[in-house]
């Protein structure tokens, strides 16, 4: 018997550590012969903590939303008496989520123990790099990646082979390969999941990249906010070194040396920009510079440097093992292969899913994600984070590939999908993103630095009910200016969340500005709480709860809210048993 506990950050946040120690304790106390192992995130974060029990025949029972008490029961019944507990195990409908996916980058996540290199090797790991070193030339490796049609999964979707070839052609004796693991889009977490759940796939991807372009040194630039990812990576690198996958003369191949190191980022979204990332690696402020020269010619310490993101690199070993054609057989004409999406927001079954490119948005949100929480109305999905935009309900049939998503005004980005329902205010959403980009602008370009600030001021004003005629046009004008006047991707895309919400939800902006109403009932300054005379029985409960004594009225007579005093906390509406408090 074997017990496997999901120990990704999401699992741990849901309480997996407590479950783990309970299981260890129970097993220790009873002196049972059971292996307890950990694994990464399987992507069904809404079911965490997840515990798998695997019996002698290899049959797996998956228990979900496990508490320490349930864990004890699982030991008592399943482990001791071999009786699976059906009411705790995963339901067929949730299990089918996995079947609807095609997992390439996530192929091992949630299935192997990320802290044990042998499990990765058992799954065929490090075979692809061996094949490259022993049977292929660097050019053939690049050719295979070209055939796969793989494009960068971090944002712009630039063909990976093209970058590799540019770096390969640079005639310098020292070159670098850098992995951008500084996952910046707030709302996307596929990179974290791969780092925590399958770090060796990234290491192998970097080895292959290093072999192809001729780099002997790789650097992984990880977000400091991901301590667990850093820890697992460190372990993985150590194990890979011990096995001889990193070091000198790898696979006995004279002259193929490669090693890796980790550099923790210090928190700056702009470092997603390649030149800023390089500056940061060199210990400077992460400020972008003009291109050319491109990093492939002059990057880290002036040497040719190739930068790929985590998901891109995790795909590489699979492609080299199975061939580029198998990868390019999936997806659409221009967007090949699969893509990982982080489904969050008002979605029932939030988590990570990997699907072939080109499937309609609807399938991801409704078939896989289970639709909207409380079956409310789907309003929009935000893609591409601070550089992206909102795709409205009427475009739900849009296929997810780079070109189609760009056409809607959003971008593929790193694959974050934040789902919104009718209770999400689009003006507030735009304001939220501008607040983010305003804070994260490095300050080099005036348009980006000051323009985002001005846009934010206008949006805040609109949300607070101070919007003026002409504000929408001003936002549009500013947005275009910022796009034109900014050096790097951050500034060039910062207005997107505003422009795309204006494009699809102009009426919402107008309603804020001209009618001082927030249709989603989210902008506090635009809300009024009032008591409906016909429904109020005068119980006085709301009056006692109101923190500012804004409610007047005699007992058994209908009450009234003093709008001057009301701070719109909503307590009265929450406590009223007669639904007499109305929110407008």
């Amino acid at each position, binding site marked *: 018997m074997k017990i496997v506990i999901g120990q990704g950050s999401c699992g741990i946040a849901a309480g997996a550590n407590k479950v783990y120690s309970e299981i260890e304790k129970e097993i220790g106390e009873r002196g049972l012969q059971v292996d307890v192992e950990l694994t990464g995130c399987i992507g069904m974060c809404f079911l965490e903590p997840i515990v798998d029990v695997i019996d002698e025949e290899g049959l797996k029972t998956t228990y979900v939303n496990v508490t320490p008490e349930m864990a004890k029961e699982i030991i008592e019944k399943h482990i001791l008496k071999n009786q699976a507990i059906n009411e705790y195990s995963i339901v067929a409908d949730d299990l089918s989520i996995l079947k609807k996916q095609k997992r390439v980058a996530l192929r091992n996540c949630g299935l192997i123990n990320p802290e044990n290199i042998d499990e990765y090797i058992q799954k065929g790991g490090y075979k692809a790099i061996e094949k490259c070193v022993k049977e292929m030339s660097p050019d053939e490796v690049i050719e295979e990646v070209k055939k796969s049609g793989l494009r960068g999964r971090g944002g712009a979707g630039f063909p990976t082979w093209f970058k590799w070839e540019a770096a390969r052609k640079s005639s310098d004796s020292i070159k670098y390969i850098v992995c951008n693991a500084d996952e910046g*889009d707030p709302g996307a977490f596929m990179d974290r999941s791969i780092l925590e759940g399958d770090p060796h796939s990234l290491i192998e991807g970097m080895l292959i990249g290093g072999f192809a372009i001729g780099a002997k040194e790789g650097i992984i630039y990880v977000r400091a906010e991901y301590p667990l990812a850093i820890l697992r990576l460190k372990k993985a690198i150590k194990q890979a070194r011990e096995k001889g996958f990193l070091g000198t003369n790898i696979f006995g191949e004279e002259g193929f040396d490669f090693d890796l190191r980790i550099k923790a980022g*210090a928190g700056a*979204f702009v470092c997603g920009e390649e030149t800023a990332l390089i500056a940061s690696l*060199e*210990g*400077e402020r992460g400020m972008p510079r003009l291109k050319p020269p491109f990093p492939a010619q002059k990057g880290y310490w002036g040497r040719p440097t190739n930068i790929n993101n985590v998901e891109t690199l995790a795909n590489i070993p699979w492609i080299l093992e199975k061939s580029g054609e198998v990868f390019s057989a999936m997806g659409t004409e221009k967007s090949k292969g699969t893509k990982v999406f982080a489904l969050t927001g*008002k979605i029932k079954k939030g988590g990570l899913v990997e699907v072939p490119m080109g499937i309609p948005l609807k399938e991801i949100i409704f078939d896989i994600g289970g639709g909207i929480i409380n079956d409310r109305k789907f309003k929009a999905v*935000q893609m591409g984070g601070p550089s992206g935009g909102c795709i409205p309900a009427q475009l739900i049939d849009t296929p997810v590939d780079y070109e189609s998503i760009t056409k809607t005004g959003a971008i593929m980005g790193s694959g974050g999908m934040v789902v919104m329902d009718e209770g999400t205010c689009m003006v507030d959403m735009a304001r939220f993103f501008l607040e983010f980009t305003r804070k994260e602008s490095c300050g080099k370009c005036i348009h980006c630095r000051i323009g985002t600030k001005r846009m934010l001021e206008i949006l805040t004003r609109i949300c607070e009910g101070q919007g003026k005629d002409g504000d929408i046009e001003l936002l549009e004008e500013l947005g275009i200016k910022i796009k034109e006047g900014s050096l790097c991707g951050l500034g060039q895309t910062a207005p997107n969340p505003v422009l795309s919400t204006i494009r699809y939800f102009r009426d919402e902006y107008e309603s804020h500005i001209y009618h001082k109403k927030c249709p989603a009932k989210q902008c506090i300054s635009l809300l009024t709480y009032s008591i409906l005379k016909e429904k109020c029985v005068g119980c006085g409960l709301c009056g006692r709860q109101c923190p500012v004594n804004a409610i007047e009225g005699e007992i058994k007579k209908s009450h009234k809210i003093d709008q001057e005093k009301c701070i719109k906390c909503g307590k009265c509406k929450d406590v009223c048993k007669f639904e007499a408090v109305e929110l407008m």
Partner: protein
Amino acid sequence: MNCCKGEHSNKSKLGMENIDFKKLDLILEKYRDISGSLISVLQEVQEIYSYLPMEVLNYIADKMKIKPAKVHGVATFYTQFRLKPVGKYMIMLCQGTACHVNGSKAIEEALSDELNIKEGETTEDNLFTLNNVACLGCCSLSPVMMINDETYGKLTPEKARKIVREMKEKEQKVV
């Protein structure tokens, strides 16, 4: 930027005499021959003091032969670096997109109210610091916060209040 000109007299006056330069020297020694390691140095130094005291920044500049302005520039550029001391419990409240959509603003209000501080501040008793951060990577459990190394998901304003209240009570018992 915040200079220690007496405004935080009780907290930030980590005077030169109180600074343990030995550990600092060890870190500087470790990175002496590695170029471009300023950020790594600052990260490790912050581990020791929990923030970057002004004197320490100047000391680093001096030892690494980098202009103080550059050290300060880097220290203020990245959000990870703090120039002010923090409380015993560092609350990192996620304000990423997923958390925002699921109501992280209300969590912030509840925590501010419970602790009587604003975002970015530390309580009088030096127990709690409240900081907003962007995405902790647990979006499917949003809204999320991290206190020291522990992550708390699926927060509601009440749940968040309860978590810090319990910590407060635990501390009071210890005293």
